[in-house]
């Protein structure tokens, strides 16, 4: 990714990012000054104990949460300058997200769930693309099934198809196998990596699974709201 001067810009740039959330028990410092740069095309896993701020960091990168300090720049956009609708457009054009809980729209069937990002992006042939995406995750026989009629693994594959269908430059995956059994989880991850490779997108993957983390090119370890280590996988 290059700017007007031909200088290569990072896909993600976190500059002294802080996140403080208010709760009934008082305010909690979740992120305490994160500095991070992720280049386009990288695959990065984020690990760390529960409560270390992994999901919060991903929410910030996806524009789903707003930092209380520092700067978040993703795909050339300074997210702090965008309003809610600006953030929505930013995600539409740049980001695909896979959640641990799938977050499919329960009242829409599989192909409709997958078609939405394409439709929102104003691309042609939304349903053809959605069918193709579902086919690429092996669900061509489940097109008209509703989420409630699908198994957990199938739902996550729908979510995966939805994340990649609009060919985003950045894929965010928050413990995508957390709710799946080992075998199903493996096949979902295999799909995630192959689809990412196919589209050349940047991947940020949150996981508790060390082996899975090692499949990425880089592993970032978050500890109590700070980056404990940041290493390239050999």
């Amino acid at each position, binding site marked *: 990714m290059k700017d007007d001067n031909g200088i290569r810009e990072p896909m993600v740039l976190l500059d002294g990012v802080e996140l403080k959330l208010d709760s009934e028990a008082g305010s909690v410092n979740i992120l305490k000054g994160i500095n991070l740069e992720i280049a386009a095309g990288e695959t990065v896993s984020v690990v760390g104990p529960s409560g270390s701020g992994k*999901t*919060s960091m991903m929410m910030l990168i996806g524009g*789903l949460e707003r930092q209380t300090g520092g700067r978040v720049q993703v795909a050339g956009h300074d997210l702090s300058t965008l309003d*809610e609708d600006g953030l929505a457009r930013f995600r*539409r054009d740049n980001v695909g997200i896979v959640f641990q809980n799938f977050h*499919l729209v329960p*009242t829409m069937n599989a192909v409709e769930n997958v078609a*939405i990002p394409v439709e929102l992006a104003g691309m042609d042939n939304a349903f053809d693309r959605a069918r193709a995406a579902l086919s690429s995750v092996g669900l061509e026989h489940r097109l008209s099934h509703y989420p*409630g009629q699908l198994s957990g693994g199938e739902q996550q594959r729908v979510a995966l198809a939805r994340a990649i269908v609009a060919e985003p430059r950045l894929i965010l995956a928050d413990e995508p196998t957390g709710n799946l059994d080992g075998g199903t989880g493996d096949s979902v991850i295999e799909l995630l990596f192959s689809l990412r490779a196919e589209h050349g997108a940047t991947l940020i993957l949150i996981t508790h699974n060390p082996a899975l983390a090692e499949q990425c090119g880089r592993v970032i370890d978050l500890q109590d709201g700070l980056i404990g280590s940041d290493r390239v996988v050999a």
Partner: protein
Amino acid sequence: MINAFRIARRELRGGLKGFRVFLACLALGVAAIAAVGSIASSVIAGLEEDGAILLGGDAALRMTHRDISPAERTWLEKSADVSRVVYLRSMARSDRTGKRSLVEMKMVDNAYPLFGALETSPAAPPTDLFAKRGGVWGAIADTALLKRLGIEIGGRVIIGDAVYEIRGTIDREPDRVSGARALQLGPRFMASAASVSDSKLVQPGSQVWYFYRIRLNDRDNLAAWKTDLDTSFPDAQWVVRDRGNASPVIKRFIDRTTLFMTLVGLTALLVGGVGVSNAVRDFLTGKMQTIATLKCIGASSGLIFGAYLIQVMAMALLGIAIGLLIGGLAPALLADLLRDALPLVARIGVYAQPLIVATAFGILTALAFSIWPIARACDLPAAGLFRDSIARFRGVPRWPFVVATVILLAALAVLAIETAFSRVVAIYFVAGSAVAMGLFAIAGILIARAAKLAGSVGGTGMRLALANLHRPGAPTGSVVMSLGLGLTVLVTVALIESNLGRQITKSLPERAPGYFFIDIQNDQVADFEKTVSEVAGFREMRRTPMLRGRVTRLNGETAKSENVAENGRWILRGDRGVTWARELPEGETIVAGDWWPVDYTGPQLVSLSANSAAALGLGIGDTITINILGRNVTGEIANLRDVRWGTLRMNFLFMFSPGVLENAPQTHLATVHADPEREAGIETAVAAAFPNVTTIRVRDVLETVNGFLGKLGLAIRMTAGIAIIAGTLVLAGAVAAGHRRRVYDSVVLKVLGATRRRIMGTLLLEYGLLGVITALIASVIGSFAAWAVVTKVMKFDFSFDPLAVVAAALIAIVVTLALGFYGTWRALGQKAAPLLRNE
């Protein structure tokens, strides 16, 4: 059963969450029915307990146009105190200001009142107020008369040839409801009956009524006295009324108002029933995991059904109790309003019967509308309950539950019909409600199917909107039902009001004459016509002889109310205007038979209005006997006329051929059209030359009728408001039920890149489509209902007012959209993260 109670008790510890709309719906409907019934009971109790005061006696005899004989009076005085009251309508004029006003005269004797007390300002005995002093009679009047004439107490008014001094104003006239006419066109004027002869108002054929009020020496012997009266005077022409039926007009008014308002309350309860059903379904949706768990550990469907029915009915009883509390206290809360609005003293209290009826309606509604969703939830297999919530409540439960629901709905219908004053109206209401609910249920299904068929028509927004209408679990059905029923009431009321308003403001003044003149004596006719036609601005005059009579026989048989159709009974109830004519009056048309020749001299023929002939079951060739001035006049029906009452012309039910009536003592009735700006000159000229002639300004009549219709409109609006509030509540409930899911869907869409505008656009389309389609259907049903009420109940011509319907429909669409938008916009402005984390 014990287990069911145990489970229910534990579950109820969760409190009222999710039951607010349920409670509100039941409480509102039950409160409306209980309040209407309680108020009616307190008014009727007042009517019954104060019967003698309202009637002016234990019994009252009414004679039209002629007095009773001395022998009859002697008979009456044998066993009772007797008070004679003469009612007339005339013109009063101030000798000082020259202003004039029509007055409703009540001329009393020294025995008046036999019961109750006449309250005046200043307070004084009636004998003092009415005594003749220095050649001038005393009188009292409504303050309205003093205002109209521009005089004070002590001022003088001239009526006919008599002069009266106003010695006080009337604060409360105990027997005001028992006058000669239901509709009073002028203020009350009271004076001594002895002054009537001085006024010279009573001439042969004059419009005058004589009332004889009786206070029996043995007041417990009323029935025997009446029998004795009937036996002693079998052919007497008086109408006898007793304290047990003091004011049939008021009683009928209360009965009809109660019926109307109860039906509106019932509409609120029916609409609420939809809310009950929705609330129960939503409540059970939240209990799916519990139900599944209970099933997994061995609870039977029956046990679960019992446990949840107990919970729902416990909540229903709470809602009903709230409704009963409000309804039961309504008479006390509205005591001041009732005192001012009614001519009698309502007996404020708690009445069991209306509360029992309201409770029965509440319980039946709660049961009828909750058994279905409870049965559905309990029928689902345990494994299925653990899956997602969609498609849970579709389909039909097992047949016993279907049968139970049908029986309960039928019981509701039977209760509505059996407790109604008019079964026919109640049956129409029940049938109409059933058809309307059926149509909206079908409409809900059709809208969902059409949305599915339309599929991916239009852009993303349209596709999402259409999809939201047919998704499993979409609230389309309940929104269409609640919005549809509420809007139907709104359209019906809007159209009825618009038709009532149009009757008065639009159609009448164009065609109506400026004045009615009554009591023109035979020997005054020529002078009267000359005087009026010479006044500047005079346009046209019509005149007809005027007599009054009572229908006594139909085809030779004694005319009895019970033998004629309900809509014809009023004809037999009292005196009706009668006339004779050589030629068919202008503007009327013959619909059956032939008008008699101008020079007809044969046997007595009679022409009837087509509607009244139908109501009385009479046709061409039948005979009708009318007692006019004590003489029975029988005529053969020669033709039927189409009479248009709305024209305010001289319309008569009965017109005789020339002959017998030609020579009977009679007065004349005239209508005069004049330039509106100069019509006052006609009134002045007539008053100066013919003091006995009574002038009725059509504009005054219209104002009186307008005032009445205004009050009627207000009552309609207020009661309809209850049904509309219920509809809005249910609609809000239906929309709120899907709200959490909708916000979640919206947040997911936002995560995927949809802007708020786009999401709201989809919502706008979805609710807009629902609103528009439902509004269309409700407009048709509401228009039909309004047509039925206006033409069949009120007997007016119906005119469709598209503006009223469009306005009502727009309101409905705006309300739907506002409710649909409520909360979603706010949720969309917030960060998505917390919602995604919490899921």
